């Protein structure tokens, strides 16, 4: 059992060699690596945001808002159908999840018409076939219309996918280095931004839905801040972007929307030198815009972003070219960001920032340095202690420990796993625990010697007897690491990864490499080599 066939020896050495090859690039700079021949691996350990500095944001798509908006659209559709068919209704209202109204009669064909309109309206947005998406219930005269669960699920999934795309576009526009944007669960988005430790601008960009609309100003009345009245039917009161106390009364009807924009660029007004954003409509948008401006020359036209009026210039002449510009007293960075937002498109629903974790580059570098320092000291302490206790065998265990560390590093590089600060702690913990397998074996060997076995048999039996204990003991730690991996995210997950890798490499080296070393000297082994007193 203690002797190895040549094939075995070769494969053990090969595995170790490959692991070492993958560990080596971490000791050189990127430039040095590029000058190496191509057969040498060049992947370095992937550093987590807590070590290289960067920002982590967890966002959630406001799904309540999605359903609310859809219900509002449904509201006007239903009213239209009822009016068209001369159905008298009262108490029409929107709740969180349904529409309610009271009718005297509600014939089946009207219900069918409502269902058809709703299906055709959502058809172009969601692929759901001819399946109905509404639940209509009637209790006496009280009617309630709500969306089916399948539809809500589909609408949410769709909105999240769309949000993900728009978030990606907005961040790409900023030119950040290797951003990672991922979906998490059903309605969340994780954004990792290496190298950015102050994500204020990105947060501001993501905090806006950037819904742009052009609506006419209601000139029939003026907003009086001292005597605020309700807006006339069909109009709404919106705040101004530049002047906090001033409010506009605008007509609710959206003449043209941001979805018809094809381009938006920041620039400067040649006359006033004020920062502006110039935009261009697609064909449909251009013709809509042309018609409205033609019919409303001399009237103010409000440009509205996220329910705030950016400006409301008076239409001087019909704009038929399909392009225009927005000026609203913003500085050039704001103009730039607005252009980014308009180009990337509006979010289907607001994004809520649930969590932010940002680490500056200094702290990351300090953590790496402290981690390295702690690893070296811990490593030296363990090495000296092992040699003190187990003498020659301790020395072998120490060599195995070094190989172990290289293997952990090699495996991390090979699989491009992320190394975090807790991950470094996991490696250091591995330094302490990796010798355990060897300790269990050496103790067994000592016992065998004490009970009168010859050295060589003692070694052989020691390995054999320690095996099940080593497996049992390491599997328990592995179970803990696996549970941690699935429960944790971010830096803590990095700890479970290094811990698990460390368990594998330490068991592997104990049963292959250390054993191989011991077998080479099998014939000349003496009890004193295990650290036993000669007269013991």
């Amino acid at each position, binding site marked *: 059992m203690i002797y190895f066939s040549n094939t075995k020896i070769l494969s053990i050495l090969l595995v170790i060699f490959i692991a070492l090859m993958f560990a080596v690039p971490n000791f050189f700079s990127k430039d040095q690596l590029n000058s190496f021949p191509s057969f040498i691996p060049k992947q370095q350990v992937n550093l987590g945001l807590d070590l290289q500095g960067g920002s982590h944001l967890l966002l959630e798509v406001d799904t309540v808002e999605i359903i609310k908006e859809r219900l509002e659209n449904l509201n006007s559709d239903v009213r239209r159908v009822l009016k068209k068919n001369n159905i008298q209704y009262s108490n029409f209202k929107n709740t969180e999840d349904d529409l309610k109204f009271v009718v005297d009669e509600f014939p089946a064909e009207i219900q069918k018409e409502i269902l058809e309109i709703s299906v055709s309206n959502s058809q172009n947005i969601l692929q759901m076939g001819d399946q109905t998406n509404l639940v209509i219930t009637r209790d006496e005269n009280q009617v309630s219309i709500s969306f089916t669960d399948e539809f809500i699920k589909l609408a949410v999934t769709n909105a999240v996918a769309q949000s993900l795309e728009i978030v990606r576009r907005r961040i790409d526009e900023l030119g950040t280095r290797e951003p990672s944007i991922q979906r998490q669960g059903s309605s969340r988005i994780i954004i990792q931004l290496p190298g950015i*430790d*102050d994500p*204020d601008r990105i947060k501001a960009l993501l905090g806006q839905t950037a819904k742009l609309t052009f609506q006419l100003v209601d000139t029939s009345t003026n907003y009086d801040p001292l005597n605020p009245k309700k807006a006339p039917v069909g109009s709404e009161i919106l705040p101004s972007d530049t002047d906090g106390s001033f409010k506009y009364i605008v007509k609710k009807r959206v003449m043209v929307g941001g979805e018809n924009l094809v381009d938006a660029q920041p620039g400067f007004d040649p006359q006033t030198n004020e920062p502006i954003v110039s935009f261009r409509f697609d064909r449909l948008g251009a013709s809509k815009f042309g018609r409205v401006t033609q019919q409303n020359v001399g009237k103010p036209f409000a440009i509205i972003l996220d329910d705030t009026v950016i400006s409301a210039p008076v239409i001087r002449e019909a704009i038929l070219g399909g392009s225009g510009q927005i000026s609203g007293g913003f500085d050039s960075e704001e103009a730039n960001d607005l252009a980014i937002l308009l180009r990337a498109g509006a979010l289907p629903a607001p994004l*809520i*920032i*649930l*969590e*932010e*974790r*940002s680490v500056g580059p*200094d*702290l990351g570098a*300090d*953590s790496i340095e*402290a*981690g390295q320092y*702690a690893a070296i*000291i*811990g490593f030296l*302490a*363990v090495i000296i202690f092992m040699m*003190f*206790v187990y*003498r020659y065998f301790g020395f072998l265990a120490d060599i195995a420990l070094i190989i172990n560390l290289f293997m952990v590093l090699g495996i991390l590089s090979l699989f491009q796993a992320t190394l975090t*600060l*807790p991950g*470094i*702690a996991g490696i*250091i*913990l591995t*330094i*302490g*625990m990796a*010798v*355990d397998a060897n*300790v*269990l074996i050496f*103790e067994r060997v*000592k*016992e065998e010697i*004490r009970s009168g076995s010859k050295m060589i048999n003692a070694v052989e039996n020691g390995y*054999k*007897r320690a095996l*099940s204990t080593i497996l*049992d*003991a390491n*599997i*328990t730690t592995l*179970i*803990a690491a696996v*549970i*941690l991996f699935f*429960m*944790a995210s971010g830096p*803590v997950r990095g*700890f*479970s990864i290094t*811990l698990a890798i460390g368990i594998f490499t330490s068991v592997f080296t104990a049963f292959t490499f250390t054993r191989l070393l011991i077998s080479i000297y099998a014939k000349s082994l003496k009890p004193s080599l295990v*650290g036993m*007193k000669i007269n013991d």
Partner: protein
Amino acid sequence: MIDIANTKINFLKSRIITFIFSSILVVLSFGAFFVSGLNFGIDFKGGTLIEIETENEIEIAGLRDNLNTLSLGDVQVQEFGSKNNLLIRVEQQSGGDQIQQNVVEIVKNSLDSYLSSEVNFRRTEVVGPKVSGELIRSGAIAILAAVFAMLIYIWFRFEWQFSLGAVVALIHDVILTIGVFSITQLEFNLPIIAAILTIVGYSMNDTVVVYDRVRENLRKHRSKNIIDLLNLSINETLSRTIVTSVTTLLALLSLFIFGGEVIKGFTFAMIWGVVVGTYSSIFVAAPLLNYLDVKREWNTTSAVDSTR
């Protein structure tokens, strides 16, 4: 040369005393937990944490007073490793997830105007109420799942008596760790959950080694009285228990001393866990087998073991 061989320490002699000792510690932990609770960090409580570094030393009291005028609720300022490094904690603002985002900007602006020297923002963490609630739940579930997994594993590999003894020792270790965090009021955050899970793994590891030997001895010495047999097993594995604990502690101490402030709480928890875990495998897990009526007649053909 260290050689802890042929020790014949009667560990079980004082088992009543150690059981009482452990019970007192457990009761104390519960007491501290219910009286003062855990000092949850922002991972679990929500809120904002900002670590700053400045060129000149900052007078903490003045800065604290200044930040407490911002009407952001309770703002804590403490030194973090050195006099130029400060940790600022702002409690969670009422009004949902979105509101929390304003805190960072308000604090940063206030710091920039209050402090004359350049401020380096080393770390900013904002955790909203939704996420903190989830983290606390998943942390608790993870610990319970780990303990349960150990229970099942040991049950499969040994017998239910062993499984029960091991899990009692495990719960003992977890309670004592939560207890020490309640008493010291050290910050309890996400990495501490990771540390507790590692403690669960480590403590089990230690216990398994002793139990393995107990099982082996149960077969080898069929007529031996159970107390002598347990003592023999603990003594036979004592040398390994000590060596592994020492190497693990050496590595952890190095991390505690040199590894930087950010990871200190995490390392402290693990050092504590290794000490408690080692203690419990000798003084709790093994002696418990005396009361659990372990099976003496092992069927050697069906038992999973490599020893003969």
